[in-house]
């Protein structure tokens, strides 16, 4: 069966695209899928360090797209998670090293080898964005509950619609305490403004910083709320679109469960 190319994008930088790509990719692989995560941020690569694979780069996505190597040669195998591969960005080229046509061709090759291909899109709406979305079948937009991130997400959603892609939304770094006190946009507010479907809500989680420090996969940490949220997003992408959304509450899962039992929380 042919794989699916999903672009992870946001418009604004620093909202968690790379963490989302690494985590969803790892979670999809843990469910038994063959997964390639592709760093499309040519010249500013980072997905490799987030995944702890920075020491093993030989070929990169530009080499693969230009036919200087086989797709399989550019794909670095993750040693901790079976079936997870990284195709890193080139650090010496710039965004013009690729073009949409070459990415469409590369995507075709990737679909033949993998079940899921996640494109980690660079920030911005220029050439890098064009390249990252060129071969995509689906899109996931990441935004944080901030005015600037939501505005940029709106712009990106418009550009994706123009390419006949209907994206799904991840709201990242929700701080439940601030939502409760009225100092942070709630997920309902963000959905109301952007009017697109959610695919996941991710709570602000300090473990993301720790996991990025060490390059260890966040989703393997059962105590990380963000990690577990990304696992549920992966399940929704992987044939369970109706898995109910869990709304971050700021409490531990234990208290959540008790609350659910007593009918205090949904």
């Amino acid at each position: 069966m042919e794989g699916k190319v999903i672009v992870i994008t946001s418009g604004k930088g620093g909202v968690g695209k790379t963490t989302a790509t690494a985590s969803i990719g790892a979670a999809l692989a843990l469910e038994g899928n063959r997964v390639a995560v592709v760093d499309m941020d040519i010249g500013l690569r980072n997905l490799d360090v987030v995944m702890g694979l920075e020491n093993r780069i030989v070929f990169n996505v530009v080499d693969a797209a230009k036919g200087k190597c086989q797709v399989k040669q550019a794909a670095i195998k993750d040693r901790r998670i079976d079936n997870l591969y990284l195709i890193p960005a080139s650090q010496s080229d710039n965004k013009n090293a690729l073009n949409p046509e070459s990415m469409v061709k590369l995507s075709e090759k990737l679909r033949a080898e993998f079940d899921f291909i996640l494109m980690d899109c660079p920030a911005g709406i220029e050439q890098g964005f064009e390249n990252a979305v060129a071969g995509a079948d689906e899109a996931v937009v990441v935004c944080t509950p901030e005015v600037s991130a939501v505005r940029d997400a709106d712009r990106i959603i418009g550009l994706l619609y123009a390419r006949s892609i209907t994206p799904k939304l991840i709201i990242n770094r929700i701080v439940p305490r601030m939502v409760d006190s009225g100092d942070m946009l709630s997920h309902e507010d963000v959905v109301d403004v952007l009017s697109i479907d959610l695919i996941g809500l991710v709570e602000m989680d300090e473990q993301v910083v720790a996991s990025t420090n060490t390059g260890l996969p966040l989703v393997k940490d059962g105590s990380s709320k963000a990690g577990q949220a990304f696992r549920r997003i992966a399940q929704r992408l992987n044939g369970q679109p109706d898995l109910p959304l869990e709304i971050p509450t700021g409490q531990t899962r234990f208290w959540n469960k008790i609350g659910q039992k007593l009918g205090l929380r949904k």
Partner: protein
Amino acid sequence: MGNGFLQRLFGKESSKDVAKRRLKFALVYDQLEVSNTTLTNLQQDIVDVISKYFEIDKTSLKLDIQRSGDMSALVFNTPILSARRTRYRNQH
């Protein structure tokens, strides 16, 4: 929670409500932003159509998008020199 409750009790607008309102405005404004080339092309087309019926002063016309509150309007301002007696024939 206590903070939000008190704010609601005293009818004070929370910062997220301000954020949401500003966002909605910003998005409407963003969508109405038209590039200069589009405006110039539009102006040329309007001039061509109006010139079929009126003689207008092409140097002192003005095309603008005006916004007030949540309304926006396309305003085209031109002095009419005279009406054309006979309707322009399509030359092509």
